[in-house]
């Protein structure tokens, strides 16, 4: 069963035309493609930060966007978690303050807090009283992931969360990401242009090029296709 059904079209002022349709039915789906192919725009549309000119987005049977019916849920009503490339932890709040920021959403629904579980799985207990500027890049991304998980999203979006980290750290943080996604069983849409991350983590890959889907399948299927279709720098 499809978790997310996405079909959107958007024409930018500069002439870039994005016309993308795909379904997410696996736990870990990668949006893969070169810079400028529209990956981040797709995430922004799912999260509600960018409204496409035409399209529909359905998450677990719930319509997030339908331009024909003029339905467009506000970002805060979509139950979609977002981990940004540069973490965007609130600099004026401690790690604990950041982690608890999204908790009000499920507290209002009456769900129990999952705080200590998130802290344990991501091993961020010793960091709770620190401020973001005193964290390393890897620690920041773990906290950002924890913050998104604690808002209990129905879908997790990650926009190149490892891109700002060096290679050894990427491996470690990716391990935490995989562990957390498995532990909470949250469907995840992961934007990357790093082949290694796709091979290691993704169960399904959607290949984007110049605003269009040019392939979808398992990592082996799509990476083979990508190597033949995309410029070498896209598959580093």
């Amino acid at each position, binding site marked *: 069963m499809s978790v997310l059904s996405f079909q959107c079209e958007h024409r930018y002022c500069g002439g870039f035309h994005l016309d993308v349709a795909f379904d997410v039915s696996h736990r870990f789906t990668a949006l893969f493609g070169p810079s400028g192919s529209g990956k981040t725009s797709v995430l922004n549309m799912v999260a509600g930060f960018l409204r496409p000119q035409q399209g529909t987005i359905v998450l677990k049977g719930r319509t997030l966007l339908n331009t024909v019916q003029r339905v467009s849920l506000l970002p*805060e009503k979509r139950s979609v978690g*977002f981990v*940004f490339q540069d973490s*965007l932890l609130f600099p*004026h709040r401690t790690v604990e303050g950041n982690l608890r*920021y999204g908790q009000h959403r499920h507290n209002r629904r009456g769900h129990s807090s999952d705080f200590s579980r998130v802290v344990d799985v991501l091993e961020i207990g010793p960091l709770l009283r620190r401020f973001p500027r005193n964290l390393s890049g890897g620690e920041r991304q773990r906290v950002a992931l924890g913050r998104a998980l604690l808002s209990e999203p129905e879908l997790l979006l990650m926009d190149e969360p490892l891109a700002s980290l060096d290679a050894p750290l990427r491996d470690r943080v990716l391990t935490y990401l995989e562990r957390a996604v498995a532990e909470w069983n949250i469907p995840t849409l992961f934007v990357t242009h790093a082949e290694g991350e796709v091979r290691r983590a993704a169960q399904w890959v959607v290949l984007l090029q110049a605003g269009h889907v040019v392939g979808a399948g398992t990592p082996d299927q799509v990476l083979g296709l990508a190597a033949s279709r995309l410029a070498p720098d896209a598959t580093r």
Partner: protein
Amino acid sequence: MELPLALLNSTEWTALRLSLQVALCSALFSLPIAIVAAYGLARFEFPGKWLLQVVVDLPLVLPPVVTGYLLLVTFAPRGPIGSILHDVFGIRIVFTWLGAALASAVVSFPLMVRAIRLAFQGVDPRYEMAARSLGAGHLRAFFTVALPLARRGVIAGFMLAFARSLGEFGATIMVAGNIEGRTRTIPLAIYTFANQPDGMAAAWRLVGLSILLAAAALVTNEWLERRRSPDVRA
């Protein structure tokens, strides 16, 4: 340097009290409006934005006497707004300390908006996007993320407006007059004493006091700017 405050007579004390009252009230009154205007100008594109910017900045370039005259005409008991305030609420603005506060608020408003707008422009809007992805609505994202991150600019804008209000003269004398004990703030008192043959000593005392107050406002602002808040402590 310590000003011999004990040497101030009751007229000068009243001028000091009135100045502080007027400056504080005008800055406090302007603050929420300035925050909304600054945030709107910093974050949104809308038709007529340029016009709003011109209206906000106008008192900065208009002669204060012109601003004062326009306020006088508008808020006089028979003016378009003054008549409503007077007839419906029984509030009189012209020739009261409220008039002085209003004049100060209008004249110092552009400075306050400018400082706060710059602060909001310095806050990455994606922090608010992050807040909204965590379930916060517009208002919660504003009050818990954008405003705290822009707080230094907000404080700087408040202090600038407060200091500017302490020195307001032209618009104040048009709207509030120069009534001893009621609307005579320090600048007006200095002007009055300077025009009296035996008023030079009093004028000098108030000049010294003005310098002290203005310096204190700027030093406080500087201190708040430099103070390292917990999130930037190494």
